[in-house]
């Protein structure tokens, strides 16, 4: 039994559109261990969601995973048949999506949306599955669970809808939970509750978490290790200490930029730093290191050669020509 729960090697998922090929995931590799919280960070459009969907094999219409391996508990998910993947989806890997309102079936009772997954994987009777779903609604902190189970998504607030998504994800005790921007579409005051809930439940169930977000603060609070993604490539992987707690540690220029960008409530007068430029159109990724047009320390070699991942410390990888 391998120590790693999830090991992704050289994953490439492209979208073949009429305008050209979008290399959303372009050679991504990372590992997630058991009972570990892992953050995948990057700006919108860098390919993090597509990575998650590739793991679930739910890549939308024009996309296709063209190469790479996704080892989950020792088996390569890419090579599995559709029937096998369906057995894994929900029972061993589950996903929390970004927008809870559109991600829930508007014409199906909440209780049923949880119960149907339980029925599918755990072979319980309808009544037992319903009971279990009410338990889960309780578990995620929603009061009056037996009444709420009979309601429809639109009758719940955004925060409650997201809790239901979490309940669905927690059901059947999966080994890996993927959370895609779980707090982005939720009010700020509710965000903290949701994040706390995720952390609690994950620790209780001892499942691993893959948190996808652009919010570094969330990652700092929730995750043990993280990867920084840019334009379809992983730029840096390290643990939270290395990246957040040690300002003198070598870092990828993009990571440094992201860390500096975070506005601080305590340093209001400090000038807000920016990373100049904007993310590239994934149809026309720059040659060489994709970050070089925006990089402050870029040199000529950066526009020619894609940097290889360099291990600057144990378990700390950076993809840059000039890290040391």
């Amino acid at each position: 039994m391998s120590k790693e729960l999830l090991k992704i090697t050289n994953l490439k998922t492209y979208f073949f559109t009429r305008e050209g090929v979008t290399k959303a995931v372009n050679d991504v590799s990372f590992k997630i261990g058991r009972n570990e919280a892992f953050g995948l960070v990057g700006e919108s459009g860098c390919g993090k969601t597509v990575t998650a969907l590739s793991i679930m094999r739910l890549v939308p219409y024009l996309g296709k995973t063209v190469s790479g391996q996704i080892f989950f508990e020792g088996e390569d998910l890419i090579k599995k048949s559709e029937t096998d993947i369906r057995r894994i989806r929900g029972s061993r890997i589950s996903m929390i999506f970004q927008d809870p309102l559109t991600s829930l079936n508007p014409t199906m009772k909440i209780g049923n949306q949880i119960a149907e997954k339980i029925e599918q994987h755990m072979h319980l009777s309808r009544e037992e599955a319903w009971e279990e779903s009410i338990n889960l609604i309780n578990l995620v902190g929603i009061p009056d669970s037996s009444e709420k189970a009979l309601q429809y998504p639109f009758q719940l607030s955004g925060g409650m809808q997201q809790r239901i998504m979490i309940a669905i994800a927690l059901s059947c005790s999966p080994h890996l939970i993927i959370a895609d921007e779980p707090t982005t579409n939720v009010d700020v005051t509710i965000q903290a509750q949701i994040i706390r809930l995720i952390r609690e439940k994950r620790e209780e169930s001892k499942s691993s978490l893959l948190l996808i977000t652009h919010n570094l603060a969330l990652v700092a609070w929730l995750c043990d290790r993280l990867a920084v993604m840019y334009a379809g490539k992983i730029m840096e992987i390290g643990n939270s200490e290395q990246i957040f707690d040690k300002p003198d540690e070598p870092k990828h220029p993009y990571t440094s930029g992201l860390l500096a960008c975070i506005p601080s409530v305590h340093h209001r007068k400090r000038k807000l730093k920016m990373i100049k430029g904007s993310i590239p159109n994934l149809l026309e990724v720059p040659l060489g290191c994709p970050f070089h047009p925006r990089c402050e320390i870029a040199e000529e070699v950066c526009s020619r050669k894609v940097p290889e991942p360099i291990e600057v410390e144990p378990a700390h990888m950076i993809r840059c020509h000039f890290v040391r």
Partner: protein
Amino acid sequence: MADIKGYILKRLLLLVVVFIGVTALTFTLMSLTPGDPVLIMTGTRPINPEHLQALREMLGLDQPVYVQYFKYLWRVLHGNLGMDFRTGRPVIDEIMEALPRTLLLALCGLSVAVGIGISVGTISALKQYSISDRISMFSSLALASIPNFVLALTLIYIFAYYFRLLPVAGSGSVKHIILPSLALGLGTSGLIARFTRTSILEVVRQDYVRTARSKGLSERVVLVRHILKNALISIITVIGLQFGYLMSGSFFIEIIFAYPGIGRLSVNAIMDKNFTVVQGVLLVVSSVYVLVNLVVDILYVYIDPRIRLAKAEEG
């Protein structure tokens, strides 16, 4: 639940208003008939002018228009739609004989249309852009464009004449209703197929379908519980509206197949200038149409939980 009753009440009120409008319209239409209705009814037979005047008085034709209208409305509400002057029978009786047959035909046509339409539309949507998709969508458009009497004649030629499989005319057994139902329903099936395809394609793109798949549910469950259930909501409104169209389409079908329904009754009446019958048919058909639309609206409220509960909360 209080406000659903309010909603239904409001719609029934609208029904009454529309019914009054319907009677007004039919009455107006008939009053505008060129020529003296009495003369038209008696034809070219020479009649004593005194008798003509008596007839006029009996029919109330010598009174002012609004009086005539109220008398008409009163009679209608009592179920008196006048007398068919050819057969001497009350119009209401003739209509009540013929109406169920037409409704049966319309219902069978609807079943054909829905059965074929939804199946073809669903399969097309799931196989988007494939050859079978393109072919079925084109056929659907073609079927919807061909007038139903053309379809009827084609079907007759193929099945009744060439293959001698099915009867062409009359009524009374299941066999008699097959061809007419097909002729009536195939055109609408094209419409329903196209609409189903659009509706399903829209639903399939939704996030909750992705969530359903992420739960590891079987494709069949995803299709039925998540995709179809949501797509069906808009499809049903379309189906409801088609019922009225099918009822009017039956006019042509009944003539071709000599099916003794309302359509044949009224077209013959038009030929004979039998205006009381025409008036009665118009009234009854329109009322049925309005009622069916009302039922569809109410059904729609019940089917979509968002609307149903939102209305309940409003109250």
